[in-house]
């Protein structure tokens, strides 16, 4: 199990480094997605299933976002079908496979219960805490999302639109 965590952590570091050193955003997004997935794996192996799920959702969303961006990049650079060229996805895929192997190893050797978290830190406990002591935090989190959405809406308005 510690080996799996180390492996996932290594993937996180490598993917993050690659993400921030790319020349173009479209190249960086897949690595950023892998980085988020790797952090999700670390969280999962540490017993934080809820956080892992949210991180994984963010990472998967980023990868979904990256696919069209990479294709557009291929068109913009005039390199024909470069976006669908397999080489661009090689390293992200290898990193993702490493992650998959790490989690798969834990699942096959220690079973699902190993990932369920202890009684005090399981998903149920997190949900209870969120609606109990952290109720005010939940209200503020709603405001945070609202503020983020409104800020983005305001920034991206078409010119001349009173929004």
């Amino acid at each position, binding site marked *: *199990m*510690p080996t799996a*965590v*180390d492996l996932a*952590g290594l993937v*996180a*570091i490598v993917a*993050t*480094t690659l*993400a*921030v*050193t790319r020349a173009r*955003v479209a190249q*960086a997004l897949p690595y*950023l997605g892998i*980085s*988020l997935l790797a*952090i999700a794996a*670390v*969280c999962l*192996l*540490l*017993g*934080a299933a*809820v*956080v892992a799920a*949210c*991180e994984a959702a*963010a990472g998967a969303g980023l990868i979904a976002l990256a696919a069209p961006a990479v294709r557009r990049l291929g068109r913009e650079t005039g390199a024909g079908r470069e976006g669908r060229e397999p080489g661009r996805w090689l390293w992200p895929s290898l990193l993702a496979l490493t992650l998959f192997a790490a989690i798969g190893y834990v699942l096959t050797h220690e079973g699902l219960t*190993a990932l369920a*978290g*202890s009684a*005090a*830190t399981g998903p149920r*406990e*997190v949900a*209870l*805490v*969120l609606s109990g002591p*952290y109720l005010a*935090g939940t209200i503020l*989190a709603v405001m*945070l*999302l609202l*503020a*983020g*959405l409104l*800020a*983005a809406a305001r*920034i*991206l308005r078409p*010119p001349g639109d009173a929004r």
Partner: protein
Amino acid sequence: MTAIPLADGLLLAATLFVIGMAALMARRSAPFLVIAAVVMLNASGLAFVVAGARWGQADGQVMALFVLLAAAAAALAGSALARRRDSAEERPPAPPPARGRWRFLRDTGAGQVWQYATALAAGAVFFVVLVLWW
């Protein structure tokens, strides 16, 4: 349940954090600056998960969720901002470069993100070193 030492987990978080900080100082384009900030926020969230696992409390996870949400909101606004192009009249005139040893005292124009990020990083490191050394 898992015997991951606290120091190892925090080391991983700190490494990711430093990668983000370095990117913030080294990169110039808006999308990569947003990516760097998101990497830093995620690293801090991971630190909270590790700390929560150490104490066996759900609080660390809750904090990590809030941090993730903050990162998402920042990424949302940041990507919106990075997509927006300046119209011609919004583009700033190139500020005259301020040079010389005392330029920080003469500087009357806007600086660059990397300069301020360097100030942020240097300040944080200075604070930590000062507090630990004293």
